[in-house]
């Protein structure tokens, strides 16, 4: 199938990206270093390793998703490899989806590797393997898939640097949804409040994928939220990809 062919090719191209390995190196460094951070702070050592570890995987995974996502499509357009590709009897949409799947596969593998290192470090400290940690990492991965789609969207119409900045902005907005909720409570009801509420619902809420607190502090994770967050991720990712399709299908390749 055309989409899988492009996905495989994208994966081949992505794993040659040196930035990926640089970020992975930093992530591994952070994971190893978390042990030493414990000495500087007030809390429980294991909790800190877990917290820092999950945060590192989340942060570096996000950087990977953004840098790769914005770079790959732009490179194809800039280097004109895209001409021969799109001259074939293929829908532009198939090209986009293939690129997306290839990137997701790459992110999946990188996340898996980081998770393996993290679990190893934890095992060396606690001699147990907590499956809840894997759950938190799984949902981090879902968040990364959404970020990949966002990076892809921005790369369809702007340069890699701007696309990266916009993607970063999306990430920040996504994690500040709670502050908007607080703000709305303080605004008097009226047109302004209604507008803010619409914005609040439509803007992404990436905290839905964040189960770090529950996992680190051994709090229960409501199963209902797991289901809702997963669906939210799938639908929002689809939304972003549809936007990307809308932009990409009519683009002139001068």
């Amino acid at each position, binding site marked *: 199938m055309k989409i899988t062919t492009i996905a495989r090719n994208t994966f081949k191209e992505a794993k040659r990206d040196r930035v990926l390995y640089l970020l992975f190196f930093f992530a591994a460094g952070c994971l190893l270093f978390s042990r030493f*951070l414990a000495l*500087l*702070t*007030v*809390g429980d050592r294991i*909790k*800190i390793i877990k*917290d*820092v570890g999950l945060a590192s995987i989340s942060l570096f995974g996000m950087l990977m998703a953004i840098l790769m996502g914005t770079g790959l499509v732009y490179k194809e357009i800039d280097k004109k490899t895209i001409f021969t590709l799109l001259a074939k009897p293929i829908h532009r949409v198939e090209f986009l989806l293939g690129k997306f799947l290839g990137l997701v596969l790459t992110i999946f593998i990188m996340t898996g590797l980081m998770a393996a290192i993290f679990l190893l470090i934890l095992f060396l400290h606690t001699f147990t393997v907590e499956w809840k940690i894997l759950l938190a990492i799984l949902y981090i991965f879902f968040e990364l898939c959404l970020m990949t789609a966002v990076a892809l969207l921005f790369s369809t119409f702007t340069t890699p640097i701007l696309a990266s900045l916009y993607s970063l902005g999306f990430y920040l907005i996504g994690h500040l949804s709670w502050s908007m*909720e*607080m703000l709305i409570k303080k605004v008097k009801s009226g047109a302004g409040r209604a507008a803010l509420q619409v914005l609040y*619902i*439509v803007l992404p*809420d990436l905290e*839905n994928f964040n189960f770090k*607190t*529950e996992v*680190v*502090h051994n*709090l*229960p994770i*409501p199963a*209902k*939220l797991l289901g*809702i*967050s997963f*669906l*939210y991720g799938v*639908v*929002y990712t*689809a*939304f972003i990809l*549809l*936007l990307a*399709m*809308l932009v990409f*299908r009519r683009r002139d390749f001068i």
Partner: protein
Amino acid sequence: MSSGEKLLRRQRNLIIFLLIGSLLLFSWLKHQSDRVARKKVPGSSIIYLPSGKYLKHITFGYSSLVADIIYLWAIQYYGNYEIPDRFKYLEHIFSIISELDPKYVDPYEVGALIAVYEAGDPKLAYRILDMGLEKNPDMWIFPFQAGHIAQMQKDFEVAREYYRKAMEIPGAPPIVKRLYAHAAYRTMDYQEAWEMWKEVYETAQEDWVKEIAYNHLYRVKSTVDTTALGELVKKFREKYGRLPSDLKTLVRVGLLKEVPKDLDGKDYVYDPKTGEVKPARVWWKR
């Protein structure tokens, strides 16, 4: 329109249709996710912040900005009464703020007030104000406030010590001397408190001192007013067997000459179901 253009148009319409559909769907899902309760751990993000000393290095020269952000967050956090366990890391949080921006006056003052009036821990308040004085030896308001708190706790030894410290700092108003003298034998009553803060307000050279004094004045007046109104409401109930529907009723029956307003000029909040009278705002929040 050519057949190709028709096809493109149909595709575009399909995409737009799916876009709107997915937008509605994820909006609904978001709404659902908000309804699921999630346990919050108080200050969970902040306790793993390294102590202020190290944080200062990480913030690359933006330490006062970071201090601002943390302070803003702390105010919202401590103003939110739903978190019962929120004072556990009060000292840590405010010590971080003081490390990041030692000259920032508000956090010391507010931190101490939260410690005393919300957490009920005056010793913590003293520690915070001591931190403030240590970083800002010219701020007489810190030991002054500590003395005030000690006096309210009827701990006159401590109060006298703090007033002495405040007195020795150049720029302290004359009232501090008098308080130092009286700390040994007089308890604070509202009249005294009002006079004290009024003098501070009138002799203050800086705006921020005026503001602190104003907030204290607000508190004194609102305490006096709400207590009095509460008493009158009780009297009304004893007389008429029910609670008044609003405060103006008290004027009509002659129990009150006129309904007082708070220092901002706003009305007090009266709950006809419980008979409670409350001030319009939390006195230390600006």
